[in-house]
């Protein structure tokens, strides 16, 4: 199923007279890491939720190739800022998603555990994992079944540099393997390290949409200039 290009046309979203997203237009046709950047409250997570279908889009502003969100939902997965795990062991958490995605269950789970070096915590209850370990398990759960698109909502914002580095490597590797990544971040050094395409939001509006190098050279907006220099 063809999932690219992703097209978002005139997407706006208002809650109680407050405009969260204003006339969003996005066109992306490359399987690269797209970073959705912006300051707190700029609408990054809301945009990601729209793209993943967690917020209903009554105007059908979003299309993936020639498909609607509903048609390709099975091929998407999402990792949340605060990892959401079931009260089960690491293995059982990944197995749960494998079952729901109807993939070759135990074999696939073991492969993912090996790929992400989760063997030592395979039988540990999710409640006893550290923040970094939880996020790695959440990523493992998101990649089982080989989704073609993964959304990551600030996956490293609460992690120390070691885990941050490890998770960034996983994300880069997934992208190299052909997975389209959409990731929110407000960490400029992280954006420089792994970002390829940048969408910059300010108060719900896109004020930049292009390549990383162009973004870093941008002199059109004080918001971006401040963002880069303070980051």
């Amino acid at each position: 199923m063809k999932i690219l290009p992703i097209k978002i046309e005139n997407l706006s979203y208002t809650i109680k007279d407050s405009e969260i997203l204003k006339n969003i237009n996005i066109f992306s046709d490359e399987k690269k890491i797209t970073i959705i950047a912006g300051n707190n409250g700029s609408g990054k997570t809301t945009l990601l939720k729209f793209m993943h279908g967690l917020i209903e889009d009554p105007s059908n502003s979003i299309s993936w190739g020639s498909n609607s969100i509903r048609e390709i939902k099975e091929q998407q997965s999402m990792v949340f800022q605060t990892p959401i795990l079931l009260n089960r062991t690491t293995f059982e958490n990944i197995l749960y998603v494998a079952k729901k995605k109807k993939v070759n269950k135990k074999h696939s789970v073991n492969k993912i555990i090996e790929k992400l070096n989760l063997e030592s915590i395979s039988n540990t209850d999710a409640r006893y994992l550290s923040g970094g370990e939880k996020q790695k398990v959440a990523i493992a759960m998101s990649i089982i079944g080989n989704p073609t698109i993964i959304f990551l909502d600030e996956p490293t914002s609460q992690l120390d540099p070691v885990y941050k580095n490890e998770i960034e490597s996983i994300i880069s590797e997934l992208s190299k393997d052909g997975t389209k990544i959409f990731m929110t971040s407000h960490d400029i050094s992280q954006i420089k390290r792994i970002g390829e395409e940048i969408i910059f939001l300010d108060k719900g509006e896109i004020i930049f949409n292009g390549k990383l190098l162009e973004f870093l050279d941008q002199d059109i907006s004080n918001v971006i200039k401040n963002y880069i220099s303070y980051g």
Partner: protein
Amino acid sequence: MLSNILETAFHLIFTLNKDLIEIISLSLKVTISALVISVIISIPFGAFLVLYRNKLQSMVILISNTLMGMPPVVLGLIIYTLVSKRGIFGFLDILYTPSAMIVAQTLLITPIVVSLTYEEIYKKYKDYYLFLNSLNLSNFSKLKTLIYECRYALITVTLTGFGRASAEVGAVMIVGGNINHFTRVMTTAIAFETSKGSIELAVALGLILILISFMITLIIKSLRKIK
């Protein structure tokens, strides 16, 4: 005097007095039957209410919370009028039978189990909302996951229902009639034996009730630790 009463009460318990055992068996039979029926209805229903949030659901929860505080004697009276010879369910002919007592206890604990189940599952659903929707699961699949994830909390809810049902007097007295060797359960027997001055059997039954209550508390406490 108290030591004599306690001595006789313990004697009744340890010699497995026939009347005592009969009353305890009937009590457990009635309470467990009511509990099973109530849990089968209430847990899926409580979970269903979480997933299908609308105006009707708010009303059901409001009614359920109101019924939680309903005096058992009033409930007993309502069931009495319904199942008595002139009532609309009079044809069932269950007044003054264990079946009527099961109905009373089921109706008594169902609002409690529904409300507590709703609360537990609602809390969990708030935590898992994004995750479950991200996986694009059907509502049935979400329901199964939520019930499984709340399993320890729901056992606690079930035990709360058991505790409430086993301690009930008013409703089962009205619809059961406290008939010896037929509808006499622990609570009605305690009330009856005390009123006629035969306090030893009442104390023995009271001790058993305290023991059951203690065991339930112990299990709930252990489950909370696991949770």
